[in-house]
Structure formats: structure tokens, C-alpha cells
């Protein structure tokens, strides 16, 4: 692969990921907080589907680590990093099938992946103390991620086409 092509999007991809991190820490009232889609993970999954040879587990791990530091404090550093890397491991295995499936089916896959992600995060959270979680925690965020996925996909695809990132 030519080097010139490989360098495209070095600015745009980090910018979108910073945007996703900012969305993830947006202040919300308590009742709305569970509806928060998992922005950083969704953005990284998109970039992985689009450019699987460039965006993979290492990028996901780094983004997860930044996420860790941002909301960190009552868990150990590295919890989101490892969870995101594990999800990206799955995505890298199924990305060929995901890419050709219609957006709605992709969104269902995303739902399952987000539930799995929450499970992993919950596991690492439980290492630091007992956190009580109810059904809202398990279902609302994956559901909102499912709803948001087509929009994120279309938004990022238009950015990718506009800046010709390959």
C-alpha cells in the first residue's frame, strides 16, 4: 500500500474521536443518563468497518484509555481500554459480514456488541466495589446505540467521502 494513501485522515479521524469523547461526557440529568449511547465505541467501530487495515484494537485501546482517564476515579485505569479492545477483536473478525449487511442488521449486531461491552465494563467495575445496576443500565444504552447507529454511520461516511479518507 502506498504511503501517501495511508496518511489520509490523520487529522479527521482523531477529531471525530475527540468529538465522540466529548459527547460521552456531556452533562445530562439523571433520568437521561442511561440513554447515553456509547459514543466512543460506536465511532471506533465505524472507522474499523471502513478502514479495518488501519483502525483496530490498538486505536480502540488508546481511545478507551482516554475515556478511562476522563470518567475515571472510582475504577482502575484500563477498564474501558480493555473492554473496547475486546469488542474490536470481535468486530475485526466479523467486519466483512457486517459491511455487506444492511444498516438495520448492522444496528442489531451493534446492540449485541454494546450489551457485551457493558457486561465487560461491569465486570471490571465490580473489581473495585459493589455497584448496583438494574435493567435500565443493561437495556437503555444499547437501545439508544441501536437507534443512533444508522445516523452515526451516515454522518461518518459522508465525512470519510468528503475528505477522501481511505
Amino acid at each position, binding site marked *: 500500500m502506498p504511503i501517501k494513501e495511508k496518511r489520509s485522515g490523520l487529522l479527521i479521524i482523531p477529531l471525530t474521536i475527540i468529538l465522540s469523547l466529548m459527547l460521552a461526557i456531556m452533562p445530562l440529568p439523571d433520568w437521561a443518563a442511561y440513554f447515553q449511547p456509547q459514543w466512543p465505541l460506536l465511532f471506533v467501530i465505524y472507522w474499523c468497518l471502513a478502514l479495518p487495515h488501519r483502525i483496530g484494537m490498538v486505536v480502540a485501546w488508546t481511545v478507551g484509555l482516554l475515556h478511562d482517564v476522563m*470518567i475515571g476515579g472510582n475504577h482502575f*485505569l484500563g477498564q474501558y481500554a480493555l473492554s473496547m479492545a475486546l469488542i474490536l477483536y470481535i468486530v475485526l473478525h466479523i467486519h466483512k459480514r457486517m459491511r455487506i449487511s444492511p444498516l438495520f442488521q448492522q444496528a442489531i449486531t451493534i446492540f449485541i456488541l454494546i450489551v457485551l461491552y457493558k457486561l465487560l465494563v461491569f465486570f471490571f467495575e465490580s473489581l473495585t466495589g459493589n*455497584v448496583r445496576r438494574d435493567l435500565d443500565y443493561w437495556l437503555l444504552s444499547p437501545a439508544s446505540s441501536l437507534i443512533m447507529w444508522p445516523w452515526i454511520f451516515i454522518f461518518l461516511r459522508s465525512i470519510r467521502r468528503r475528505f477522501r479518507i481511505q
Partner: protein
Amino acid sequence: MFSQSYSLTTRLVLLSFLSLAFMWLDKNNYLQDYLDDSFSAIVYPIIKAVNYPYDLGRDVSKKLSAPKKMTLEQLAEENKRLRKKVLDLELAGIENKNYKKLLKARHKIREKVRLAEIIYVGLDPDIKTVKIGLGRKDCVIEGQPLVDAHGVLGQVIKSRALFSTVRLITDSNHIMHVQFRRTGRQTLAYGDGKSNMLRLPNLPLNEQINDGEEIITSGLGGVYPYGYMVGKIVKKNPANDADKSKTKADKDTGKRFAIAYVKPTAHINQTREGLLVWTEEMRIKAKAQSRSFGKPVKKCQFIDKDAN
């Protein structure tokens, strides 16, 4: 980082080891002096940027609303009234000090406070934390209490270079030692999570507890100094969750204990600023911490001045 030659699984294993190493280092507080500073330097601007519109809105509304509400004379009058109050308090303080000397009690009037801006409120409804814009560069140490004008807010659980995380007293993992102002009865106050209240689950059944009774810190828990306002008793908890847990607890203990709920007097979900408190022991700790930076930190000098 990794070349194409590594298989996916190899990469995953390597990254897992790296993360577990991070967790272990973080658990044992080895990370603070090395990686932590650079991380928080990257993350701090992002947090500030997200909160910028909120801060702006607050400033604007302050500017619009403040001059209308009070005239100059009213302000002068209030100033006089407050000065009088301060004088009274000073007198009371001197009196109190004398009494305490008489009793040979240890007094903690040498607490040092500093205004801390709340830069980020945690999103998770189950985990009640906030972040403040003071970090280890400002001599913040772990375990320091944060209060506001009306009562106790919480304690610092993690201090990073530029900001710190504070666990609020209503967090479900937060337990503090408190006492009733009227009777002096001491008990433990558990954070109740979602309901934004505190729970006193082990009070004797024959204890008379009135609605609106004041709860203060006992100073025996090791974190909060004595005498700060915590909240007021409300018997019935409005949140459904808490009601369930109440009936369950009643059954479990065979009704040997009374349960009371405390509504915090601190403006937990409204305030944008808090006061960070340094007790005498904390100042010593903070000084030791500032030495670990190599050169003395200028912002820490205010601690030295008063300690001597």
C-alpha cells in the same frame, strides 16, 4: 505499534496484559507520578471544552439577574449585617477555644480551605461523583473533604495532576460517621445512590427521631472534621427504590433497628463551587506530596504559611 505480522489474537493478548498491568499499577498508586500527568493534560482541555457552554450560560444569567435583584443600599445593608455576624462568630470562636482549652480537647480550628470549581458531574446515576478543577499540583490529596456553604459534599477519592474526583456523600459506596446535633447519638450514614439521600439503617427503635432534625459530622470517621452540617432527617423517602429496600431491611433485622433518611443540606446537584478543606494532618501529607514533585510547588505555599 504492531506490524501486520502479528495475528489478531496475539495483539489482543498483548493489549490485555498491558491493560491488566495498568489496572494493577493504578490500584497500587504507582501511576500517579509518571503517566497520570500527561494523561490528565490531554483530557483536561476536553472536559473544559464540554463544560464551556454551561459555564458561559451561568455567567450570563448571573450578570443579567444580579443587578436587578439588589440595589447598592441593600448590598451595603447586607454587608453590615454579615460583618456583624462575623464578629459574633469570632467572639463565639474565642469563647469556644477557651472552653476547649479548659476541657483540654483537641481543637481543629486550623483548617485551611480553598475554593474548588466543579468542572464535571459524573453521568452515571448509580455512581455519584464529580470532578473539581484542583489537582495534585494544587496540593490536593486523597481523602480530603469537600464542603459547600450549606453542608458536606463528599471526599476526594482520586487526585490527578490537574483535577480530582470527589465521591459524593449520596454515592452508594459512601459511608460516613455522623451524629445527631441534638442528642449526640452517633451512627453511620450510608449513601443511598439514586434517591440522592443518606440512610441511617441502624438506629435503636426507642430513639426519638424528629423530622427535620440536624445531622452533623462526628469527626470520628477520620475523613470529615467535626461539626460540619450533613443534612436533615426526613422519615419517608420519596424514591420507590428506597422504599423497597426499607421494607426489606425491616424484615431482615426483625425490626430491631429504626431506619431514618437524611436529605443533604449541601446543594449537591446545583452547586458549581465547593470548598476543599485541609485539616492539620492533611497539610502535612500534602506537603510531603508536593516534595515528591522535585521542586516545591508554588501553589502549595499557602499551606506552609499557616501551618507554622
